[in-house]
């Protein structure tokens, strides 16, 4: 018996609205369909009305987890447009925050994976230790989530000796805890039984479907923007690109845990080799007419910003491609022929940030295929019309 199960737009496994429609036969998924567009951000249009500096804080709010990724991606693009050369100390601090952000994102993901697999103890432990890295970020920037540390031409805050010592001390604890999670995540039988062999994505499929980030690397493709197209100071920092060849959720877990250790090494290197000097240079208010594409390896994968300037103090166009969007096609492939029980795990394994990936909604007529733009009021009107036409089963009575 085939029937369709709607996972989302509201579902406990999803923290943000998206609609996954599974056609299932018993417990096995025969077909999966993905529907986007439950969030309209209007962010790109807003960016065109704000100055280069104001847009840093706007792009920061694209995502709560990889807030630094989006600002760095944007700021690097603008620096190219303005032909600025940020000082090395500034770049070191920028990279430091980026790596700390990766640590907190990966610890968060480990917890989410534990929760989706029903392993709540793992979730509680990883999130407790995530507080350590959140505290480090707070000592550096004053903020836990939106660090606001980037500016055009460098960073806004300097580090002192005491902070460096604090970070190194906390790092030792984090390293120790991560070793425990590595052991737990790859050895606890019931957890591994849920991860191994689930959500298979072959190397060829991963490349063909343009998967990014840990999803791609877990399929054995060593692709990382930090290595392939180094930005900031990654060219001079020694680190390895972590891969796994199991092509499943277990592989994605292993890649992320391995990356945690790489992050700790990078952070230690950055702190020990911190050059002296200023942290930022002065940026002009306008940028010459030009266009630029900026790439950045966010914790979730490759993040792309396209920026076009027209000689004023505002961008003419800002286009953001968040890593989650790149992984959707691969997710559908992974879901097919899996179990219903594995849906949350497979979907969580791409570390989805649905709101980051959503941009604008365009209405398409299902019959004619015609696209149109509609105002908010007209949309409300339309929904009222549709609702009025629906026959109600029972007159609901408002209790008050």
């Amino acid at each position, binding site marked *: 018996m085939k*029937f369709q*199960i*709607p996972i989302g737009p509201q*579902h*406990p*496994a999803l923290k943000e609205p998206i609609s996954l429609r599974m056609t299932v036969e*018993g*417990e096995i998924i025969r077909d999966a369909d993905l529907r986007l567009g439950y969030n309209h951000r209007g962010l790109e249009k807003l960016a065109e009305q704000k100055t280069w500096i104001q847009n840093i804080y706007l792009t920061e709010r694209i995502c709560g987890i990889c807030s630094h990724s989006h600002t760095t991606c944007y700021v690097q693009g603008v620096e190219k447009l303005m032909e600025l050369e940020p000082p090395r100390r500034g770049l070191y601090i920028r990279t430091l925050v980026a790596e700390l952000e990766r640590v907190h994102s990966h610890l968060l993901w480990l917890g989410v994976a*534990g*929760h*989706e*697999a*029903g*392993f*709540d*103890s*793992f979730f*509680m*432990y990883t999130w*407790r230790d995530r507080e350590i890295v959140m505290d480090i970020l707070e000592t550096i920037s004053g903020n836990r989530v939106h660090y606001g540390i980037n500016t055009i031409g460098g960073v806004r805050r300097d580090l002192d000796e005491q902070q460096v010592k604090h970070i190194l001390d906390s790092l030792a604890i984090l390293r120790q805890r991560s070793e425990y999670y590595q052991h737990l995540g790859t050895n*606890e039988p*019931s*957890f591994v*039984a*849920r991860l191994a062999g689930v959500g298979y994505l072959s190397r060829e499929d991963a490349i063909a479907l343009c998967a990014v980030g840990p999803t791609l690397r877990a399929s054995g493709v060593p692709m990382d923007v930090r290595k392939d197209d180094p930005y900031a100071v990654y060219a001079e920092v020694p680190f390895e690109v972590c891969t796994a060849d199991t092509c499943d959720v277990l592989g994605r877990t292993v890649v992320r845990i391995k990356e945690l250790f790489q992050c700790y090494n990078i952070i230690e290197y950055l702190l020990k080799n911190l050059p002296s000097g200023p942290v930022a240079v002065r940026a002009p208010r306008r940028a010459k007419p030009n266009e630029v594409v900026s790439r950045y390896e966010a914790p979730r994968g490759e993040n792309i910003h396209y920026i076009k300037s027209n000689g004023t103090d505002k961008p003419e166009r800002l286009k953001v491609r968040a890593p989650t969007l790149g992984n959707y096609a691969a997710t559908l492939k992974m879901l097919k022929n899996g*179990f*219903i*029980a*594995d*849906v*949350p795990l497979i979907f969580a394994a791409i570390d989805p940030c649905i709101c980051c990936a959503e941009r604008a909604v365009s209405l398409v007529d299902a019959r004619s295929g015609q696209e149109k733009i509609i105002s908010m009021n007209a949309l409300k009107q339309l929904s009222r019309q549709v609702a009025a036409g629906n026959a109600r*089963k*029972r007159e609901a009575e408002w*209790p008050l």
Partner: protein
Amino acid sequence: MATVKTLIYLIVYPGLLFLFLYSTFVEWYDRKLYARLQNRMGPTHTGRFGLLQPIADFFKLMAKEDIVPDRADRKMFSTLPAVGLAIVFTAMLLLPVWNYSLDQPSVTSFNGDLIVLLYLLSLPTFIFFLAGWSSTNLFSTIGGARVLTMLFGYEVPLFLAVLSPAVLANSWRLAEIAAFYRQRPALTLVNLLGFVIALICVQAKLERTPFDIPHAETEIVGGTFTEYSGKKLALFRLMMDAEMVVAAGLLATVFLGGFPGGALLGLVNFIVKTLVVIFFLSLIRATTSRIRVDQVVSFAWKYLAPLAILQLLIVILVKGLIS
């Protein structure tokens, strides 16, 4: 006098009132333990150490809006929680808590009560299935199907594991089995393997991690209980807590020597022994992740059932040696 005692037995101890209070306490104990194992605080606010939290939750749920889906079988949907609760509370009466003495057998202690108790504990599983099925919600239906699939896995090993101590004690009566092991405590060790198997199966019967598959939140929302709300959900939750008490009581009777000592000492015995069993159940819950339903069935038939048969073999051999 006998009538008064029977009434007290039914209504106060170990019947309705005691089971209600004790199952809320057990829920608190389980929640607190689970939370401490996860480095959390658990309930702290209502009552001392949050002891009254489960009771507060129960009454809060009782006061909530109660919705029956349009398409659901209204009668079935509404009576199931009450029937389920009645079954579990009846099962409690069969435990030799107060009527442990063999000289004065009461109505609820008879030859074969072990079998009756096991069947009474199987019935809640069917109640869950019917609850899921009669809700007509997609998620409930899947949950209901999972309840039954799991039943095929754990039921046989559970029966085998619980019956082997009875085979050694040469009785189908709970009070006699408990008395047998009290007289020869060393023989309890023979059933150690059976105890572990029974613990795992009871965990599956109570649908707790790693077997919380029928109501796996991240997969199928509320599972069997998706459509239940208000009073009905409150009764179901109470039923699950009471089922935990009865199942723990059964294991304590069969494997740990029962609850001797009359009203007061027997009560202490009952509480200590059931809490020990529930401690293990909470430990399993905190240290594992949820497995898939097909993994439950293969695990049960590949490992639990053969081991349960091995236990039966050991018991028969030991029985031959001591007689």
